[in-house]
């Protein structure tokens, strides 16, 4: 009989191996799903994972998209990973992402049509501030009233979506847009534009910010006492208090990090790839980043790789939709499987299977 046995300490090998195993299992289960939908599974997997990078016909479009999509995912996931390490669950990064975009865009549009070079930096700050304020709502409620931050932060996403719809139709609507919802195009206004920095790579300021955040997070987590305190607060709250870590301070810091980074991601998106505030501005980066954070084992380098992988499935998924006619829901299910398998295989780092003779009753 197979029996589960807790390992005396987590296995480093399995901790590193589980993401790879999860990707493999997702490919198998996803292939099965695509086969049931009547598609050739091998072809579908190839279109999702390989064509975006190596198919000459689509690569010129798809390759730059990799960084464009991975940038916000990594930026947001890095911010979330701090809190997730400490057991502080900010599920509302999507809302903070929207608020960062709205605040940044609003500050920029207030100066339209000035060409002052300070406008973009000001917008960046406003974006960070917008995300931060939205994150402070669940944080302060948790600190003062012990509310559940999961619920508050999640529900605030829907509030932010309503605000987004409202400003797209009202406050920020392009006065020269012929009555269509949506703001002026920020990408085509030089003072506010977040352009592709190196042609053909998809690299924009948001991607630069994502890389910087990865390095910063890596240094903080591996070299600074803050990284130890985060882990402590997550794994053993009583030991954290004994060590002198103040739980309220941790909530504040973690929500600050995730709010600011999500806000920045929104700002860089609205000034670059998206170009304008519109009702359908948000496409779920804030939620997908949760998967990215866990897929990357809450480790900065892992998140970098996971963000790239997730971006790949986004682009490949779109390709599969129009090349093979796969339904969008099937692609989403496919991405969801990744997290599912990761969490399932996660057990292997803390437990091992053992064969045992069945004990006589």
């Amino acid at each position, binding site marked *: 009989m197979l029996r589960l046995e807790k390992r005396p300490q987590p296995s480093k090998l399995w901790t590193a191996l589980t993401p790879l195993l999860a990707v493999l299992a997702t490919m198998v289960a996803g292939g099965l799903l695509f086969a049931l939908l009547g598609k050739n599974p091998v072809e579908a997997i190839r279109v999702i994972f390989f064509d975006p990078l190596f198919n000459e016909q689509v690569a010129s479009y798809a390759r730059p998209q990799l960084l464009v999509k991975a940038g916000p995912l990594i930026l947001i996931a890095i911010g979330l990973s701090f809190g997730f390490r400490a057991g502080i669950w900010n599920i509302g990064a999507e809302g903070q992402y929207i608020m960062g975009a709205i605040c940044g865009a609003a500050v920029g549009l207030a100066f339209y049509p000035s060409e002052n070079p300070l406008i973009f930096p000001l917008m960046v700050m406003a974006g960070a501030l917008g995300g931060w304020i939205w994150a402070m709502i669940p944080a302060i409620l948790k600190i003062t009233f012990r509310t559940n931050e999961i619920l508050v932060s999640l529900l605030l996403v829907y509030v932010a979506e309503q605000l987004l719809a409202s400003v797209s139709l009202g406050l920020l609507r392009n006065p020269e847009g012929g009555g269509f919802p949506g703001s002026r195009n920020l990408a085509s206004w030089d003072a506010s534009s977040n352009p592709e920095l190196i042609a053909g790579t998809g690299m924009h300021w948001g991607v630069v910010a994502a890389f910087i955040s990865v390095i910063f997070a890596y240094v903080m987590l591996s070299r600074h*006492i803050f990284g130890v305190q985060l882990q402590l607060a997550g794994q053993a709250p*009583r*030991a954290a208090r004994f060590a*002198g870590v103040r739980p309220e301070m941790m909530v504040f810091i973690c929500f600050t990090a995730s709010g600011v980074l999500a806000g920045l991601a929104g700002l860089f998106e609205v000034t670059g790839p998206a170009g304008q505030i519109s009702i359908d501005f948000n496409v779920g980066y804030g939620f997908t980043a949760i998967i990215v954070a866990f897929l990357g084992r809450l480790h900065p380098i892992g998140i970098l790789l996971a963000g790239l992988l997730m971006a790949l499935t986004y682009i490949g998924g779109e390709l599969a939709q129009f090349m093979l006619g796969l339904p969008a829901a099937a692609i989403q299910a496919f991405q969801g499987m990744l997290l599912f398998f990761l969490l399932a295989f996660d057990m292997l780092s803390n437990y091992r299977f053992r064969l045992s003779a069945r004990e006589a009753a």
Partner: protein
Amino acid sequence: MTVPLLRLSGITKSYPGVRANDDVSFQIAPGEIHALLGENGAGKSTLVKAIYGLVKPDAGSMELNGAAYAPSEPRAARAAGVAMVFQHFSLFEALTVAENVSLGMEDPPPQRKLAAKIREVSRSYGLPLEPDRLVGDLSAGQRQRVEIIRCLLQNPRLLIMDEPTSVLTPQEVETLFGTLHKLSDEGTAILYISHKLEEIRALCDGATILRHGKVVGDCVPAERSAREMAEMMVGTDLTPPERRELTPGAVRLEARALSLPAQGQFGTPLREISLSVRAGEVLGIGGVAGNGQDELMAVLTGESPTPGGTLFLDGADISGTGPAERRSMGLRTSPEERLGHAAAPDMSLTENTLLTSGSAQGLTKKGFVAWGKTRSATEEVIETFDVRTPGPGTAARALSGGNLQKYVVGREVVRNPPIFVVNQPTWGVDAAAAATIRQSLLNLAEQGSAVVVISQDLDELLEVASWFAAMNEGTLSAPREVAGLSLDEIGLMLGGGDAQDAAAISEAENAQA
């Protein structure tokens, strides 16, 4: 010779990496009170679990009253007449005594009948207990009575007791012994596990001594000294901690009328606690568990904030400061719960060293961790306190309880803190390691540190403390010098009797003498 009640022959049980019981054989006669002795990890728990049907031995056989006995589960053991009182109670605090008792029974009678039965049994065995009271309101000693009565209602032929006196006051211990003798007179055998050798000498008819899973000897406890039995358990000669006379210095740590409301439903409020510890002194705080020791500890570590003007370090008010700040001022602490409080289970020992050491020890600089130095600091603790572990990279939860205890106490002691507060310093630690830890506490005091030891082990307190105070329902008795303190007086202090009463008794005794 009569047929033994229980005969064990060749019991062997292995777990991955360790042989918990190795060819263990002994027997218990009807009505015998038999002690099972051994250090932590000697295999006592595994053995009694096998007798109680919780563990199936790999080899060997048992006989009960001459018939083969191999319980597959505790229910079968109970049906055969074997009952067990565990060290940790399995009681629901929100239910009454009678409800708790009925939960443990196969087919409980109606509550009213059961209540009457509980009253009857509790009276006849001298264990007063009110069936309608909530368990949450009972003292640890009373809770144990609930467990014992639950067993007695099954009319057991063999009663197993695991460390029953660790939570009792001396008076409660006497009551318990009375009950056990009564049971034994009626023919019920008792298998008694304890670390307290003097108790075993007073109570038990025979003893079997285990070391590393093997039987290393048996004896009649009354014929041996406690030291001899301890040396049989450990397998080496023991040197009791050495204590030198000290001249106390200035007051280092002081609490003035410190009160704190109860935290949570079953917490204990602290009531007007005053204490002062001088350099070179060890203040021992005794008391039955749950009388406010944990709350007092949390106040001293800085985890529970207290109103201003209640706590002083070298005369400075530290009431509002947190744990980290107090540590930098020289107040180091070591709480009772090793895993999850004193150490984070899944983090390595090196990382755990950072819990209580930082910039002041040169392990961090502007918040950045010097991992090399932290590792060597951890290795120093491991070496000084003989912590058995593959290395500083091992996760705390992979260490045995005793080894982790050595680490968490050692982590503070190697820093030579001027003020050190420790709760249950040798909980679950074997005799040799306990002696090391106690000696290190005495050494600290000798170097001029002020030390506070909170413990439920009276022998330990009498061994290391120069002053003794007792906690009872959140109050702290006035400290008295250990030299010249009698066990009766200590019992009174533990039971909440006024220190003046105790003093009066000792005067009366002196007058008699």
